[in-house]
């Protein structure tokens, strides 16, 4: 089967400072990949470059999503194509309710895909059903987007958006940071429920803990802006024991 996401020798950076230095990675439909690595290895940059944040410059290599190059696509075009980023630090938007936001987003994506927009009643039903499944009460839908949400609520809200938008590829950027064990389980359940043969996932994390709940097919170690080692789920456990020291060391010499 052809790759869902194929990154080949990607070079990218910000403000003229290179951060990704020849990163290659391929994710096929149905696979869950985890990227682990020390702070500053470029994990979050990868998520921003894939989703098209302003200010990041791609200086070389390819990013192909279902055979189409992401490089020249606007962030919303990537979202419509099926790429979803769960933010490490979800934004607060005062004055915009969670409900309004979700509806605007879902309909923009449906419209972009040439599908019919969802009417208010169906949307409401869907939003309630999905949010309840994530242990969120209806009140959270009426509140302003992430304003006054706890860290756990914000992360749960990211997963709610993912569940609503049903992306082809979900990138979870340190979704586990700041979560207690119960919240982590709920979030993981939401993610696992979305695992499907036609959907890929890229789970970025610093710790192995999340991978106890979301079992990856492939684990990559990232250091100094590239993948330095790949393996099965057991690699994450090894890292938990030995730490990143050997990879950090290598990057210094690289």
């Amino acid at each position: 089967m052809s790759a869902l996401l194929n990154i080949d020798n990607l070079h990218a950076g910000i403000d003229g400072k290179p951060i990704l230095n020849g990163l290659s990675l391929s994710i096929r439909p149905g696979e869950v990949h985890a990227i682990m690595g020390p702070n500053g290895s470029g994990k979050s940059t990868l998520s921003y470059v894939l989703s098209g944040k302003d200010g990041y410059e791609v200086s070389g290599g390819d990013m192909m999503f279902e055979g189409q190059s992401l490089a020249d696509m606007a962030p919303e075009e990537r979202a419509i194509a099926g790429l979803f980023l769960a933010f490490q630090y979800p934004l607060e938007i005062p004055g915009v309710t969670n409900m309004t936001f979700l509806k605007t987003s879902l309909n923009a994506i449906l419209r972009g895909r040439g599908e019919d927009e969802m009417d208010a009643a169906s949307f409401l039903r869907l939003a309630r059903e999905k949010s309840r499944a994530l242990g969120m009460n209806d009140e959270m839908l009426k509140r302003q987007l992430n304003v006054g949400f706890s860290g756990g609520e914000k992360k749960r809200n990211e997963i709610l958006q993912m569940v609503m938008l049903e992306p082809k590829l979900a990138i979870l950027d340190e979704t586990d940071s700041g979560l207690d064990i119960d919240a982590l389980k709920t979030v993981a359940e939401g993610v696992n429920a979305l695992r499907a043969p036609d959907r890929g996932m890229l789970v970025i994390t610093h710790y192995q803990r999340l991978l106890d709940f979301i079992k990856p097919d492939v684990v990559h170690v990232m250091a100094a802006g590239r993948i330095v080692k790949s393996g099965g789920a057991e690699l994450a456990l090894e890292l938990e024991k030995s730490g990143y020291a050997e990879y950090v060391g290598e990057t210094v010499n690289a």
Partner: protein
Amino acid sequence: MLDAQSYFDRISGDLSGDIAARASALAAAEAVGLPTRRQEAWHYTDVARLLGKPTDDTIEGVDFAALNPLMAVFDNGRLEAAPNAQGLTVSPFQHDGATANNAVLNYNAALAQDGLVAELSGALAQPLVVTTQGDESVHLHHKIILAPDAKAVLVDNHMSQGYTNARFDIALGAGAELTLIRVQQAGHQIGTSQIKLSENAQVKTIALVTGGALARHEANVEFTARGGHAELHSAVLGRGENHADFTYVIDHKAAETTSNTSAYNVLDAASRGVFQGKVIVRKDAQHVDAQMQTRAMMLSEGAEMDAKPELEIYADDVACAHGSAIGELDRDALFFLRSRGLDEGSARYLLVAGFIEQVLSHIDDEAMADTLRALIAQKISAQFSVEGAA
């Protein structure tokens, strides 16, 4: 307007009240003329220059009719028909000719043709909408009195394309509650509100300025007895060379009074937002809580925001604070929305609408809030060339 004396001579035959008193108010006004930037309270608003600027803002009909309101329409300065309802007593306009200590009020004292003189008691079931329309220069002097424990929603619907000098004298009896909603879409307006609150009275003003070459909204709020609460919220959507100036003096003369002020400015093109808010806490007015927030979202080179949030405190057991934040549209928020599938225009629309919503959300009556939301949505779409979303 510029030649007030000949204007006065021309209309004096139609003016009510003591013409001699009016003439002396005019003389007092003419002696100093309209305010200039040399006066501290007008530092950011150059009246003479702004009055010379044409206004090309369109006026959308706001669908207040759907709210089944009581209507008082001032067409070119004259009240067409007095509203009539249980608990509302409207008296004929009576000019009192008192000379004030500033030229704006003196011009008003000299030239006011008409005004709504209303006394409200009990809970007024329908909103009272005062519409000012036409394209002539007008001076209006409204006097609104809320009896103790009265409740009302008053709308100042400014739809005039001309010059308006409007004065509102509002007195709230003990325990009375007033929501005052003001909308200005165009024209030149210098508005002065004098609001006095008795014990435990509450006033909430929500002002929306979506256009106008000059929109000067001055409010002087005075707490005369303990327990009062005032909220003053404003939203500005500036386009072209719009100039919107909110100037407040909130005078806590009594203990245990509270005030909460917020100003949200979205400034495009060469528009300018001005916010001057002075909170005074008098000696012995203990346990006052006064909060003030100014926010500006700058959308274009050439836009300007000037803020002067002042505190003047003479009592020690108080909690007073003000904050101000001026900046561009939040780029991270823009990216976040786009990563959720919204195109740039829709994302900008949502951020601007959300910004203004923080003012609209203070309106308790949902139907009223929705009516104004519709106006804001239309204005944002038209003025900021962004598509309405949802």
